[in-house]
């Protein structure tokens, strides 16, 4: 029996793949969760509208900005532009000080601050608002030192896009993204790898069918399935979970189709670099699913990650698609706000298609 144990260790150590799984993955995950993935608030971009601009408001502002939780965004809107700024997703929170703040505090013993947060990500919005309120409350305490009469700084918070702070708003876009990505890319790559593995690709290539017909034939069922799935999820989330599609449904479906095409081309590309179904599956899992879940901004905000990972997340297609889905479903935005992300996804699709064609040609030779 000793011989068996030793032989098994040989198998494990000599197979790079199992080594990666056994040692690499735990290390990477611990590092990721320890440093990169957090739901805390760090450097959240905020905008401040100060109608008083007096000693008190400036003191509160300084306190907020030096806390480390917030960064002053360069987009300082006038009151009429608050919606606009949120639509572009540039700030997480807008803080409005009413006029004659210090004077009101002294005379009326109370003054008001309005806190408006972008609740399309309800978790972050909640945290951001509570941090802000806590800091303001803190200032209130300091102000009160050495005072006989109490003073109240009224904070009024407003959650944009998601007043009830429903968490489905957060996970439905993410689930749609993951599902589309997975079904399309992974299944496509496995199905093509299967042909290669069994040698049936040869037979197909010798037949009068052109390669593009073969690939189209393989791939269309998955497009249909993925699309149907997307529809089912949307229906379920609308009727069962109460999640709206505030924007154009047509636009959402069109963008989904584009994303599916991109995932397809990615799947085809994976199949051209995999020798077997197993490899295709592993590649899809590790290179696609895990990073999608962890690094695309689905659960853990990208702003909280260390800068290198933020840059890395830029090459992940799901990251851009989640923005598109949220913009349409939760913020009800039109195409003019998401053209940049759409272009990126289209570009990625073209890139993978070109790469796959090149690899396919080489393989034929």
């Amino acid at each position, binding site marked *: 029996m000793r011989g068996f144990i030793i032989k098994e260790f040989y198998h494990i150590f000599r197979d790079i793949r199992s080594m990666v799984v056994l040692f690499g993955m735990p290390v990477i995950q611990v590092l990721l969760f320890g440093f990169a993935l957090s739901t805390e608030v760090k450097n959240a971009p905020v905008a401040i509208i100060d109608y008083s601009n007096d000693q008190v408001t400036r003191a509160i502002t300084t306190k907020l900005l030096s806390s480390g939780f917030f960064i002053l965004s360069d987009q300082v809107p006038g009151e009429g532009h608050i919606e606009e700024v949120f639509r572009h997703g540039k700030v997480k929170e807008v803080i409005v000080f009413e006029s004659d703040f210090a004077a009101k505090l002294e005379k009326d013993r109370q003054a008001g601050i309005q806190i408006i947060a972008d609740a399309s990500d309800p978790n972050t919005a909640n945290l951001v608002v509570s941090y802000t309120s806590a800091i303001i409350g803190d200032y209130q305490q300091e102000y009160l030192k050495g005072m006989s009469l109490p003073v109240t700084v009224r904070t009024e918070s407003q959650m944009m896009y998601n007043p009830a702070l429903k968490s489905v708003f957060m996970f439905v876009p993410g689930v749609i993204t993951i599902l589309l990505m997975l079904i399309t890319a992974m299944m496509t790559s496995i199905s093509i790898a299967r042909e290669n593995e*069994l040698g049936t690709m040869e037979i*197909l290539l010798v*037949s*009068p069918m052109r390669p593009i017909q073969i690939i189209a034939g393989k791939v269309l069922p998955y497009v249909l399935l993925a699309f149907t799935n997307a529809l089912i999820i949307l229906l379920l989330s609308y009727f069962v979970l109460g999640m709206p599609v505030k924007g154009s449904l047509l636009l959402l479906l069109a963008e989904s189709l584009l994303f599916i095409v991109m995932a397809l081309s990615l799947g085809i590309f994976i199949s051209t670099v995999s020798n077997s179904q197993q490899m295709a599956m592993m590649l899809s899992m590790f290179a696609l699913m895990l990073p999608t879940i962890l690094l695309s901004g689905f659960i853990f905000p990208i702003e909280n990650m260390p800068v290198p990972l933020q840059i890395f997340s830029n090459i992940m297609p799901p990251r851009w698609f989640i923005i598109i889905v949220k913009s349409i479903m939760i913020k009800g935005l039109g195409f003019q706000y998401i053209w940049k992300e759409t272009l990126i996804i289209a570009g990625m699709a073209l890139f993978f298609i070109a790469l796959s064609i090149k690899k396919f040609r080489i393989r*034929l*030779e």
Partner: protein
Amino acid sequence: MKIIEVENLVKKFGSFVANDHLTFSVDEGEIYGFLGANGAGKTTAMKILCGLSSPTSGKVMVAGYDVYHQTEMIKKRIGYMSQRFSLFEDLSVWENFQFFGGIYGLSPAKIRERTTELLGRLGLESEKKQILGSLPLGWKQKLAFSVAIIHRPSIVFLDEPTGGVDPITRRQFWEIIYETASQGITVFVTTHYMDEAEYCRRVSIMADGKIVALDTPANLKTKYNAVNIEEVFLKIARN
């Protein structure tokens, strides 16, 4: 009529010469054996004949079409079967025939007609709903061969078709090949079983990218003073 004409076929991969000035031809209705050791360049040559890759130089005509510019036409006129792949294991016999018939552009009616005919010849009509994976290997290979000729091609290329089956099944397979050839379909077969070479009308032997012998089995045995093709092969290999 010559169904395959090859003159000075050269195929290079970089500086490696896989096919070095091959010259041979195959007559219509002939059973032609294409032999050679592993790595001798057989597969490369076959791929070129099937229209899967282009020669570096030389003249190659298959079924009257030019391999450089008319591969689409060639693919319509040839059939192909390899040992590596039989048919789709999780489809039924009938579904397999339907799929491949469709790929070759046959109408549904034609597919039905040919399938019934081919299954009848094999005596396997009762198996048509069976899932392929559940059938014995010998049947699978006979079925794969039938599928390869479902569209009545001019030539059928067989890449080591009888690997792994018992001698009786191999014999039966060759009877089917004879029957097919007698109907005018040319059979181009590569094999490792030297006794199968005896069934061919003519045989060529490749080594190191060149054809080192090409003749009827009888003539080869006389020339090399051998009792069977295996001995011919060994004698050539030793030189």
